[in-house]
């Protein structure tokens, strides 16, 4: 009798948690009704603590505004995982989304055209060097002029043969930003119509912003390195 009673109480508590209080209120037996209500209160308390435990772990170093950003990043990550499976590299999407470069051009078009996201403005492309002998990374800061939200996307690539798909056809400013990243780090953007240096001269040697860059000795006969004779 008590096993059936427990199962019955569990059923009505489930219904009540979903918002349907009639099931409990219609129980004729007073004892059962009070047991059901007690079980409901306990169930509610348990779920609240579970949510409170989960929340602080995620809200570590964020301010109030990032509460909506957290859901934005989560939303974008879920949409990308559904549409382009296997492209997200890391599960932690609190501050940025780490992609692995596959289908990046299609993902960029999706981010720009999807009416909920509408990231129509590429703010900045930054190259990044983790250190000598480690990987290189490209970071994109996107922004939406209609929805006023922003997101950061990172793509890691190998140091010895860095290649990332180009997005210059999606956001036209990608053209010059990618040429600058190529000039400074040596990352080749596949599909770019004119992958040449933009800041340093065409015949410059080396990738200046890498951590292991050594300046060349002379350039067309002029001395380059840092200290002139007879200084200090």
């Amino acid at each position, binding site marked *: 009798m008590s096993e059936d009673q427990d199962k019955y109480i569990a059923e009505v508590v489930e219904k009540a948690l979903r918002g349907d209080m009639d099931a409990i209120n219609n129980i004729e037996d007073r004892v059962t009704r009070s047991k059901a209500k007690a079980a409901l209160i306990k169930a509610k308390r348990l779920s609240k603590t579970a949510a409170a435990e989960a929340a602080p772990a995620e809200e570590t170093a964020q301010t109030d505004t990032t509460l909506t950003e957290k859901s934005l990043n989560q939303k974008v990550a879920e949409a990308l995982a559904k549409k382009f499976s296997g492209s997200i590299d890391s599960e932690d999407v609190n501050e940025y989304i780490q992609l692995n470069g596959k289908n990046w051009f299609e993902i960029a078009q999706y981010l720009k055209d999807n009416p909920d996201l509408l990231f129509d403005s590429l703010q900045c492309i930054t190259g990044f060097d983790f250190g000598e002998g480690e990987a290189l990374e490209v970071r994109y800061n996107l922004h939406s002029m209609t929805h006023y939200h922003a997101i950061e996307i990172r793509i890691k690539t190998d140091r010895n043969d860095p290649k990332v798909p180009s997005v210059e056809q999606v956001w036209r400013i990608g053209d010059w930003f990618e040429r600058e990243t190529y000039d400074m780090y040596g990352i080749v953007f596949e599909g770019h119509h004119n992958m040449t240096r933009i800041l340093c001269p065409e015949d410059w040697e080396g990738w200046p912003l890498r951590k292991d*860059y050594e300046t060349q000795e002379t*350039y067309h006969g002029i001395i380059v390195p840092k200290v002139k004779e007879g200084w200090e």
Partner: protein
Amino acid sequence: MGILENKFQDNVVVASMDKLLGWARSTSPWFFQFGLACCAIEMMATAASRYDLMRIGMIPRSSPRQADVMIVAGTVTMKMSLRVKKLYEQMANPKYVIAMGSCATSGGPYWQYGYHVLKGVDLVVPVDVYVPGCPPRPEALIEGLLKLQEKIQAERPLTKKIA
């Protein structure tokens, strides 16, 4: 003075040819506006209404063929240094160069880690006057120009030089 005193009427000037040429060349040097960076703004301010450069005879010319003085104002980079040399060679003699600002003098604040910065424009063209400052005040630039005028006046182009 002495023998020549009180011997001439008005409107007769006696001087050595060197001095006359020096006076003519130094008092109207037309400058080649070669503004590269921040010092170019101070050069423009010097040529504008408050610190008028035209009162000492300098007019900005955009073509190297018409200019006497090249004021290199700003940082010279490696990419630009080849063009500086080319433009200097296109100027007609006699020509002078003023290096304005600490970047043109010796690389400026970019001397230490600037891989693309030329450490002083005197590595590619011969410089006559260095004007230090970052950026030099318009008064400092005018002092540099006056020093250049003194230098031009002290030149003696006609005198036979020994060796």
